[in-house]
């Protein structure tokens, strides 16, 4: 499995980029007893048969790399949830989109560390895809939300070093505010 929950989230949101979604929502809700993550996209979706296959680590649609026989993103999610007594579910409909939802127990000793959400958010916002991504992060009732479209409107080219530095400051500030008591 991935070393941190944020690595897992990054991997799963990238699936939405690759599904040609124009609207992606990443919602991370942390409370004392639960970590809930929802990744919803309006991309091309999957048929029931493909969805079943996608849970197999030795399945890949072969579009990205034709000789590649593995696809580890979703299997890493199921491995993590099964090993730690959490739940994970995917709903998908062809032409409509896909929603991945998982709930994990922060107190479980086998759960990977949460990781660095700031870097995960900055890399996702600047990944270079055409659609919009909205990230909402809440912790014990406090929350912030920001979309890629808003950031582009404010900062311009997000991959420019100066924009990246400012974006990191912006997310870091909001993250620190979430953690402050």
């Amino acid at each position, binding site marked *: 499995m991935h070393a941190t929950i944020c690595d897992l989230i990054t*991997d799963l949101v990238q699936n939405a980029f690759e599904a040609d979604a124009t609207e992606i929502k990443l919602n991370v809700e942390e409370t004392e007893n639960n970590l809930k993550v929802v990744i919803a996209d309006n991309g091309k979706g999957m048929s029931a048969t493909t969805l079943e296959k996608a849970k197999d680590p030795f399945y890949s649609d072969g579009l990205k790399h034709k000789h590649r026989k593995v696809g580890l993103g979703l299997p890493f999610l199921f491995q993590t949830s099964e090993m730690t007594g959490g739940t994970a579910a995917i709903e998908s409909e062809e032409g409509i989109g896909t929603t991945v939802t998982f709930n994990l127990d922060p107190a479980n000793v086998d759960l990977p560390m949460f990781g660095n959400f700031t870097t*995960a958010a*900055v890399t996702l916002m600047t990944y270079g895809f055409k659609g919009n991504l909205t990230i909402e992060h809440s912790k014990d009732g406090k929350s912030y939300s920001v979309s890629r479209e808003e950031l582009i409107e404010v900062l311009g*080219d997000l*991959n420019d*070093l*100066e924009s990246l530095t400012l974006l990191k400051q912006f997310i870091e500030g909001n993250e620190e505010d979430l953690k402050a008591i």
Partner: protein
Amino acid sequence: MAKMTLEELRNLRDSKKKEMTQRDGDKSAQIVIGMGTCGIAAGAKDAFDAFLEELGNHDIKDTRITQTGCMGLCFSEPTVEVAVPDMPRVIYGNVDANVARRIVREHIIEKKLVSDHIFDKPAADIISE
């Protein structure tokens, strides 16, 4: 660091813009970080953070950092492609935070290749497409 609103971010952006010197688009460095499942697992985000920090420390502004999926070099992740004008386009492998800092200092600033981390080109199944 205090919570920042989008409006404050905009103001900060505007104040930085005034400080910026005229850029020459052809002279800027391009960094592409492999951020597929393999890259993420190998620590590509640590390399990303190190690039941001080291470029900032040296006050280098005219650089773009983008990301791509798996480059077909999973065994040498994190992989990073660096393009600096008048230098060969290079793919570096096993780029942890330290190597990322070396790439900034040696490749981007001193214009010398970081030879012990060079990978020639992506694996055959990627470039034959």
